[in-house]
């Protein structure tokens, strides 16, 4: 098997797992998860093999591992689709494979494999616990197994297929196919517990919002295809002549060049998929799905796809960039990224649900990455993408572990509290130590704790680039966002793990099974050490010990390798200050929070706190601007007026006209003429026969007379004709 066919193989095991589970093993839970995890493991193995191989190749950016087939005949030529592993794809493949595998394993424990079936559990509602009796005959309520267990694994298998397809593809078309498959799976998985009204609303909201972005993305793809005649990365993004051509031709729209317009349209697709402002509204609601879904789709992989796409089309965005002067599209990207980073961070500090904080945190961190791309810091953005995937997945899985543990406490005590509200938790560091340590590591990485966490190195890279290229506004915005990030992270950790339990359920929480904790540990290790591959070479003390793999390897993806920015103390100091400062502030404010106490921020911020907690009322705004008019159009206009009155009316009129014509034809043509003719024939035959019938008298003498008269007549006739007339 050649290395290229191994690349083709990578997405296939999860797809096969999807089909096998759906068609065959849906009833057998163990078989389903074995198949799914087996598939994830196969893909992981293949990905690691490819990654290892890719690192052996000299100048992978010049000679990526690629293979393509002609797929669609179009006119004279063929549309070719294929695979391409260049450095960017290789590192993306690395983190996708790891996070997917970890989350698959985690799902086994999360969905309570091995637990008894629930008392009132039905497919479509979250499991509500089973009552069992122990040796002494006491009735306990314990967590119950998810009824739709196999279905979950089938869907995440399909999702994994979509993500792998997106990563390995060498053209925008198959990328878009993978993109849309992931959108579908996101829809299906957010609404996994479809009997919950909130879940159904959230799934539709997610799908429609990302659809808005996807429409623009498709426009961008179509426009690009119509201008260049191809969608292949190599032909467009790695081709200086094409890039120059696209960059200098005016598109006639908003004064942008063709490259700029295409980049902008594709970026809008990324805005939708990565939940940036203004299309951010779906991601917090997407937390309705099970936590592994939140971790995989809405933290590590699907939302990363938007960043991946933007990184991919970076040459299109950056063409025309001279001496660090950003192109208009890049300015838009940087603005949206920076704005979203700060915007989401401000909302995150006022959220009480453990998963919502992380959701807004994801939006904010993606904003960091887009801001980095926007200012041209390609390596920094890619670096942060990979790091963020690991620690965000870790944080989400950790939060899932916390929720699981508190739910266990809820079942045990029978207390009716929301297991996801951080104000009902506290003191969990004693009850769930592994979860605590790993969550702490992840949180510190997110906050950018200096030197030892991965997040520090990647965020520092972004700051250094922003400062070094004099993008001051972006630098200050991102610094503020980083401060808030550290603050709300520590707020979250303090409320959840430190202090004393604020509810009986938290008091009775317990640690989870190994299938849930082992992935946490593995991801935590990555979050600690992975950052060291990106230490800048001229960093004081620790620079130059390890080569800057991020720059050297990932940088080869572009035609022109970006130069690393020279070291400056300002961004470093800023990064350390905001990180430690935010962490400390968060701990100070929340370390003494008691049960039933209100959030101290309420008192300090007052009305601003309400604004933040209600997410700046964007949902209500969109509802007013878009959703209600859409409903109005659907109901009053399309349905009642167009459909019922006009279309149905027209059809009814045609039916009426047809029946008029029919009646006319029947009464004036069919009955008199045709029926009449038929009847006339019958009647006249009867009359004729009545006239002729008396000939048959039954008396043979009359017959004989008749015969003889006839013979005499004929004889005379023949005689006259033949003899006499001669």
């Amino acid at each position, binding site marked *: 098997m050649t290395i290229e066919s191994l690349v083709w193989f990578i997405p296939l095991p999860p797809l096969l797992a999807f089909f096998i589970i759906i068609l065959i093993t849906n009833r057998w839970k163990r078989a389903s998860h074995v198949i799914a995890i087996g598939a994830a493991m196969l893909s992981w193995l293949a990905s690691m093999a490819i990654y290892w191989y890719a690192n052996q190749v000299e100048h992978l950016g010049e000679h990526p591992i690629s293979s393509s087939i002609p797929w669609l005949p179009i006119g004279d030529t063929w549309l070719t689709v294929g695979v391409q592993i260049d450095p960017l794809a290789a590192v993306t493949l690395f983190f996708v494979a790891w996070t997917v595998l970890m989350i698959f394993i985690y799902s086994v424990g999360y969905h309570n494999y091995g637990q008894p079936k629930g008392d009132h559990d039905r497919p479509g509602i979250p499991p509500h616990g089973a009552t069992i009796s122990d040796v002494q005959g006491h009735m306990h309520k314990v967590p119950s197994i998810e009824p739709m267990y196999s279905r979950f694994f089938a869907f995440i298998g399909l999702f994994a297929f979509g993500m792998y397809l997106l990563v390995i593809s060498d053209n925008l078309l198959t990328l878009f196919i993978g993109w849309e498959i992931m959108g579908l799976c996101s829809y299906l998985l957010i609404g996994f517990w479809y009997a919950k009204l909130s879940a159904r609303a959230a799934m539709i909201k997610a799908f429609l919002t990302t659809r808005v972005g996807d429409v623009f993305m498709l426009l961008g793809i179509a426009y690009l295809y119509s201008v260049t005649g191809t969608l292949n990365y190599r032909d467009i993004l790695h081709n200086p002549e094409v890039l120059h051509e696209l960059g200098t031709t005016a598109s006639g729209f908003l004064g942008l060049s063709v490259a700029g317009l295409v980049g902008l349209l594709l970026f809008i697709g990324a805005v939708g998929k990565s939940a940036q402002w203004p299309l951010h509204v779906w991601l917090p609601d997407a937390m309705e799905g099970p936590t592994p879904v939140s971790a995989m789709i809405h933290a590590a992989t699907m939302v990363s796809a938007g960043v991946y796409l933007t990184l991919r089309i970076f040459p299109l965005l950056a063409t025309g960039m001279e001496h660090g002067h950003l192109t208009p599209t890049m300015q838009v990207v940087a603005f949206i990224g920076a704005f979203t980073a700060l915007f989401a961070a401000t909302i995150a500090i006022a959220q009480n649900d453990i998963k919502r904080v992380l959701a807004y945190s994801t939006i904010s961190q993606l904003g960091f990455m887009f801001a980095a791309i926007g200012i041209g810091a390609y390596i920094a953005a890619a670096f942060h993408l990979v790091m963020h995937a690991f620690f965000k997945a870790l944080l989400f899985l950790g939060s899932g572990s916390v929720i699981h543990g508190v739910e266990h406490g809820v079942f045990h005590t029978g207390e009716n509290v929301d297991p996801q509200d951080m104000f009902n938790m506290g003191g969990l560091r004693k009850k769930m130590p592994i979860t605590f340590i790993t969550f702490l590591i992840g949180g510190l990485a997110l906050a950018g704790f200096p030197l030892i966490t991965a997040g520090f190195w990647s965020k520092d890279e972004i700051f250094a680039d922003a400062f070094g290229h004099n993008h001051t506004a972006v630098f200050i915005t991102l610094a503020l966002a980083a401060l808030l990030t550290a603050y709300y992270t520590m707020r979250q950790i303090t409320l959840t793990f430190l202090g004393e339990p604020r509810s009986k359920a938290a008091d009775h929480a317990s640690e989870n099974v190994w299938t849930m904790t082992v992935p946490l540990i593995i991801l935590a290790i990555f979050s600690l050490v992975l950052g060291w591959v990106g230490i800048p070479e001229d960093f004081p003390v620790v620079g130059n010990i390890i080569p800057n793999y991020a720059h050297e390897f990932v940088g080869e993806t572009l035609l022109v390798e970006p130069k690393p920015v020279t070291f400056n103390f300002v961004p470093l100091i800023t990064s350390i200050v905001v990180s430690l400062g935010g962490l400390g502030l968060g701990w100070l404010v929340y370390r003494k929070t008691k049960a039933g106490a209100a959030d101290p921020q309420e008192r300090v911020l007052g009305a601003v706190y309400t604004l933040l907690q209600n997410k700046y009322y964007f949902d209500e705004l969109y509802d007013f601007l878009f959703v209600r008019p859409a409903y109005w159009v659907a109901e009053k206009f399309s349905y009642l007026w167009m459909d019922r009155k006009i279309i149905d009316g027209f059809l009814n009129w045609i039916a009426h006209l047809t029946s008029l014509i029919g009646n006319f034809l029947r009464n004036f043509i069919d009955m008199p003429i045709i029926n009449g003719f038929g009847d006339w024939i019958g009647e006249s035959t009867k009359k004729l026969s009545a006239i002729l*019938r*008396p000939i*048959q*008298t*039954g*008396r043979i*003498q009359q017959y*004989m007379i008749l015969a003889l008269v006839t013979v005499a007549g004929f004889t005379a006739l023949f005689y006259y004709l033949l003899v006499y007339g001669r």
Partner: protein
Amino acid sequence: MVPISWYLIFAAALFCIGLFGVLARKNAIAILMGIELMLNAVNINLVAFWRYGTPRDISGQAFAVMVFAVAAAEVAVGLALFISVYRRRRTVAADEIDLLKW
């Protein structure tokens, strides 16, 4: 010295009288009598032609003998039929035997 034409005309007359009897008489047995007359007229014709045509060749007489036989057979069966009909219908008037009427 009798020309053949006399015999032929005589046979024709007899034939026509017999035909009249067949067509016009009501009683079935009277019809049979008419048929007999017709057959006899035919016989006369045959024998006349034999005598005046080829008296050495006896075929004419042989033919006439056959006609006798046939006529006898036919009368026997016909009368048997009339007797059978009479038993059923109590009549031998030809125009009352009209079951084949429409």
